[in-house]
């Protein structure tokens, strides 16, 4: 029941209105039911009362008839009975009541019995007549009035034992059909249910209107809070009056001011940082270019200088290059810190890029390298410049630390990701340092001189580059077993959870690890 649940969950007004409606329905029904039962019992009570009265009147009429009856010569018992029975025909109308006059048990005039027209004597059950005979008092009960030839009605019957001279004991019953009472009750019930329904509807509408009205500011506040969250920091709640809503609004607005001030301060800081990086970049690069070219010119002419000056020219040249590399890396790192690194996505074959980078870094000296590529191109969507930089850093790192050992580069891929593993069998590093290798300026062995021209930022930048591609670089290392770095990035630059296509722990090391409990 998605349609039913949604407004229930999402709308406070709906909840309140539904609650009020339910409660008012219960209360109204109870009130109507009570009222109805009061009316019903009142009506019946009155009917019973008038029935008893009428019964007494009829009984008296019979007694009177007994006294007044003048037997003639021809008259017999039958006439007598008939005259007595006709005396019962008093009252308000024929429909108002029916008479049943039955001989009592043990009366020999079994054939002398009388009923009003159409009334079946079976209306009076044996049970009722037994009670009447036994109690010798006026008894009454509700029963079903049967008509001869079908048809019946609910009725109230009053009966008692009377003694007729010469005729013996008789049971006199007056049966009052309850049709009129039932008709009235039916009418009352209809009126009451119409009134009840209208009442519930009115309460529902009123409460809906009222809750909508009182919920409106809450809705508006929620909307404004949502807009604020989505980045419209200048949104504020309009405050009216002094009620709870106004207090909520004021509190929200104060919070919004504080938050937006904080956010804009941070944004400003970040902007300043980016500006600073950009300025430093520009301001440093121009003089550096001049220096580099000057140093180049001097270096090119070193043959004409005295040996010490010539060597100085060489040192100057080398250090210029190192300085430049360091500057470039520092700028890159601060660009990451300022979150100003932009990704320029293109589709390309990562294997071709890798091979090109290997050629670029290693040149002709590739005897120690084993390259394992999958068949065919592996097309990915990524920033080729950054991927190439990762390769350059990983390969340079492996070459610097290979210690005359081999270097293996492997590419593997699946539907989702491509992994590139760079494994060396050199000095390696301690297990606990597998995360620290990505720290800026971190060295495995601080006492060891930096042999290469590495800046100490290469792996840190590579990790940032990988993260920028929603990927990662994992590192594994053991002292003098070498190191393994595995870059894994999603092929389509999608964010998601994934496994590397190459295990970071090298296969040839798993057995070693199993045997020895390390560190």
């Amino acid at each position, binding site marked *: 029941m998605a349609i039913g649940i949604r407004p229930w969950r999402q709308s406070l007004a709906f909840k309140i209105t539904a609650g009020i409606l339910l409660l008012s329905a219960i209360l109204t029904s109870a009130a109507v039911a009570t009222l109805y039962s009061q009316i019903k019992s009142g009506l019946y009570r009155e009917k019973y009362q008038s029935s008893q009265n009428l019964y007494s009147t009829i009984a008296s009429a019979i007694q009177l008839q007994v006294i007044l009856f003048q037997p003639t010569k021809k008259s017999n018992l039958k006439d007598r009975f008939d005259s007595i029975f006709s005396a019962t025909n008093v009252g308000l109308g024929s429909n108002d009541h029916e008479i049943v006059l039955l001989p009592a048990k043990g009366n020999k005039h079994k054939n002398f019995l009388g009923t009003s027209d159409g009334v079946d004597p079976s209306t009076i059950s044996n049970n009722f007549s037994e009670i009447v005979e036994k109690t010798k008092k006026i008894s009454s009960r509700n029963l079903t009035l049967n008509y001869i030839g079908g048809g019946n009605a609910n009725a109230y019957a009053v009966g008692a034992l009377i003694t007729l001279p010469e005729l013996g004991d008789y049971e006199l019953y007056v049966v009052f059909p309850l049709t009129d009472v039932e008709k009235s009750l039916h009418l009352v019930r209809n009126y009451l249910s119409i009134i009840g329904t209208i009442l519930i509807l009115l309460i529902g509408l009123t409460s809906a209107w009222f809750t909508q009205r009182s919920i409106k500011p809450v809705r508006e506040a929620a909307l404004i809070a949502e807009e604020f969250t989505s980045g419209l920091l200048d949104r504020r709640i309009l405050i009216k009056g002094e009620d709870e809503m106004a207090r909520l609004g004021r509190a929200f607005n104060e919070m919004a001011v504080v938050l937006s001030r904080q956010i804009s301060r941070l944004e400003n800081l970040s902007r300043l940082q980016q500006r600073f990086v*950009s300025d430093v*970049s*520009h301001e440093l*690069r*121009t*003089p*550096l*270019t*001049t*220096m*580099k*070219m*000057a140093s*180049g*010119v001097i270096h*090119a002419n070193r043959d004409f200088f005295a040996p010490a000056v010539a060597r100085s020219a060489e040192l100057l040249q080398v250090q210029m290059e190192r300085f*430049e590399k360091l500057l470039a890396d520092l700028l890159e790192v601060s660009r990451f810190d300022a979150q100003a690194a*932009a990704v*320029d996505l*293109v*589709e*390309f*074959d990562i294997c*071709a*890029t890798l091979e*090109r980078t290997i050629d*670029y870094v290693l040149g002709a000296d590739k005897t120690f390298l084993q390259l394992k590529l999958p068949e065919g*191109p592996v*097309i990915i969507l990524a920033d*080729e*410049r950054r991927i*190439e930089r990762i390769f350059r850093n990983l390969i340079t790192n492996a070459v610097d630390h290979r210690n005359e050992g081999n270097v293996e580069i492997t590419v593997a891929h699946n539907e989702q990701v491509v992994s590139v593993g760079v494994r060396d069998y050199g000095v390696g590093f301690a297990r606990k340092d597998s995360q620290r290798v990505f720290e800026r300026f971190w060295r495995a062995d601080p006492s060891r001189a930096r042999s290469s021209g590495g800046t100490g930022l290469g792996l840190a930048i590579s990790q940032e580059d990988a993260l920028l591609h929603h990927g990662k670089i994992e590192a594994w290392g053991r002292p003098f077993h070498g190191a393994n770095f595995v870059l894994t990035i999603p092929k389509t630059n999608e964010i998601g959870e994934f496994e590397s296509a190459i295990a970071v722990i090298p296969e040839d090391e798993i057995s070693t690890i199993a045997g020895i409990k390390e560190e």
Partner: protein
Amino acid sequence: MTSIMVIDDDQHLAEMLSIVLNGAGYEVDLVGSGDMAYEVFQSQDPDLVLLDVMLPGKDGVEVCREIRTTSMVPIVMLTAKSDTTDVIAGLEAGADDYMVKPFTEGELLARIKARLRRQNIVDGQTLSIGDVVIDLTGHKVKKNSKEIPLTRLEFDLLVALVKEPGRVFTREDLLSEVWGYRPATDTRLVNVHVQRLRAKVEDDPENPKFVLTVRGIGYKAGQKEL
């Protein structure tokens, strides 16, 4: 003597550039601001322009656009930033190539040489693709007998592709063949120039017929089957 115009506001760098360029046998004109650049350019008519992006007054991108209104001279931008927006803006304004500071004199001279290089062409040789006719001797490209003004680099790019119709060139192939050097991968250079070339020779640059993209690899010349 080949003349090179250097537009740069940094006096020391400008001086250093002229030392290096003079040493390589080029004649050098120095201009220190963007506002005067176009005037000097018109009076000197240099063979190549080295243009700093950041200039007082008119910036390099603007100067580049100004020069391109009348001339197809090779323009190499010098930029202190390798930020994408900066570089792309320069290339889209009509620069053929760019160099990110700091660079060495070797790199600089190689780039200049590549931009000034003339291909060895047999007289009277022409190439054609569709209704585009390339006159290799006269360095002219005509489409429906109407000449299309192409920069030398755009011309070289088109010739490189058309010479071997159907061959798929990677961006790196094109970089080495047209730009004449192998830098660290910068496919933006190729992308922007292909866009510019398409804008000039294609009927509908959005739906190219001559310079086709081969997805994930690069470009090729070809007549798209219609």
